[in-house]
């Protein structure tokens, strides 16, 4: 499984590196590199979420909140207290880890709908806090004045620079997660997905593994939140609401839950729909998302990345 993917990873890297150069020559698509920055930020979340949902078989509607906590930690500490952005990013990760631990330890004992409800409740509470803590978060109007990032002496002040920076992080998170999946940890997670009883009889500490991967995915969401805040320099609660939590689920469902590739494909497609392609539908875009989720769950349980497999099966049968 690992060996064959080297080719895929190579093609993926080539596509990402050449994308801005190609786009910059097509004036009509001038905004696409900018959208790809957001796609990259969301991909960082969906990679972790795919591990938690697709591989370990759990569910979370709370990751929009972790994304928000990362963004607000970076936003508040840099804009209001003038702390170094990198420091804030790390503080955000630390805070989110602690919260994920406190939320996850009791709620991961729940399964299915109950876990969904618990994480949903957590997401809503955090959303309310973003709205109500006017003094720090600016409430529903949001907060401005969040500085950009610099990498040592290099100011990440253009779309292209930020693009490469974000996708570099996506790539690192992707490789880390792929390695995890193909090791003992990944097998343990898939074992938990298939049968918790058998997994624990094999010596797998089921609650611990669930919690670790929950925290890992929360950390990635927090990291993405910080990158988001420093990119658009302005945040308000609506970027972290329940609808966004559901969009994250649609991303991994559309791409394919059982594959990290699916997390990337889904995040990129939904981001483009969200930022560009669905503007035509205005307030009806919600219906499009609903339709996508419906169609994918019925006809493509393995998502878009499952299509080659379906075609292969079809061809085999015809022969």
């Amino acid at each position: 499984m690992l060996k064959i993917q080297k080719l895929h990873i190579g093609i993926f890297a080539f596509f990402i590196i050449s994308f801005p150069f190609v786009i910059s020559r097509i004036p009509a698509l001038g905004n696409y590199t900018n959208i790809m920055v957001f796609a990259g930020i969301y991909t960082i979340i969906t990679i972790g979420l795919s591990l938690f949902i697709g591989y370990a078989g759990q569910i979370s509607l709370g990751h929009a909140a972790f994304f928000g906590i990362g963004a607000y930690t970076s936003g508040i500490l840099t804009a209001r207290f003038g702390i170094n952005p990198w420091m804030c990013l790390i503080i955000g990760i630390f805070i989110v880890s602690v919260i994920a631990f406190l939320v996850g330890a009791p709620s991961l004992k729940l399964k299915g709908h109950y876990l969904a409800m618990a994480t949903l409740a957590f997401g809503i509470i955090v959303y309310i806090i973003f709205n109500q803590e006017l003094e720090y978060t600016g409430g529903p109007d949001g907060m401005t004045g969040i500085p950009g990032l610099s990498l040592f002496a290099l100011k990440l002040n253009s779309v292209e620079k930020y693009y490469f920076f974000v996708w570099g992080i996506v790539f690192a998170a992707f490789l880390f997660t792929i390695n995890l999946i193909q090791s003992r940890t990944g097998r343990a997670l898939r074992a938990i997905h298939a049968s918790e009883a058998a997994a624990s009889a094999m010596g797998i500490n089921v609650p611990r593994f669930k919690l670790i991967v929950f925290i890992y995915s929360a950390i990635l969401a927090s990291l993405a939140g910080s990158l988001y805040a420093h990119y658009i320099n302005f945040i308000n609660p609506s970027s972290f609401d329940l609808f966004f939590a559901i969009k994250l689920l649609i991303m991994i469902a559309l791409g394919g839950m059982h594959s990290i590739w699916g997390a990337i494909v889904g995040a990129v497609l939904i981001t483009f729909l969200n930022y560009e392609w669905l503007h035509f539908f205005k307030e009806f875009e919600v219906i499009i998302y609903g339709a996508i989720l419906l169609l994918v769950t019925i006809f493509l349980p393995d998502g878009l990345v499952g299509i080659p497999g379906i075609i292969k099966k079809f061809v085999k049968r015809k022969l």
Partner: protein
Amino acid sequence: MKEELKENILEVENLAMVFGGLTALTDTKFQLKKGTIKAIIGPNGAGKTTLYNIITGFLSPTRGNVWFKGQKISNLKPHEIAIRGISRSFQTIELFDNMTVLENVMVGCHSRIKMSFFASGMGFGTVKKKEEQIRSRALDVLKFIGLSDKYNEMADSLPLGEQKYLEIGRALASDPELICLDEPAAGLNETETHIASSLIKAIKEKGVTVLLVEHDMKVVMNISDEILVLNNGQVIAEGSPEEIQNNPSVIKAYLGDVTQHA
């Protein structure tokens, strides 16, 4: 450490299990000698699976204790018991059907070869080495259970017999000192049953102690060193296969009271 436990790998002490108003086990006790095969038989609902679930940590007993190699294990969690060296198979097949045959057995190695979350994510050289170790160990197990050539098939695509062997193989991969098999021959045809029996005997020859719950009396009588008979949550007889076959209370439990009608 209790003195008498040195040759007994497992000691079950006055075990009782009550579910609400239902008493599944009352005052069950027995010892299991290291390196032997002991079968637990009894009519349906006798408490066999409950006993298994207590030994492997899926239930904690209402009263009583389980000792493994002189250590009390009756308050430990399933994975902690697995790490200490007790492995099990399930009555209803609980294979990881989202994985290949080989991967199923590789999961069995979980508690023996460890690597940290961070190291596996970084893909360090030591991790790759350990992964190779796990793989070759799993392949050895597949050879032992005779499924080498099916290593890359999905576990749920195997016929029932091979799924049963795979369950045993996965349990063996954790290198247990005691293996608890729950109806390994249930639903198997004669040939498959024969293979399963020789597999269990081969496990014993490896030095692994076997606890066996099985309804197929031919299997039980053929391979067990000792048999324990449970009825209504109580031990009604214990002894060698010959002793059990001629024990009047066992015959009574299985066939009803024959003497009364005579």
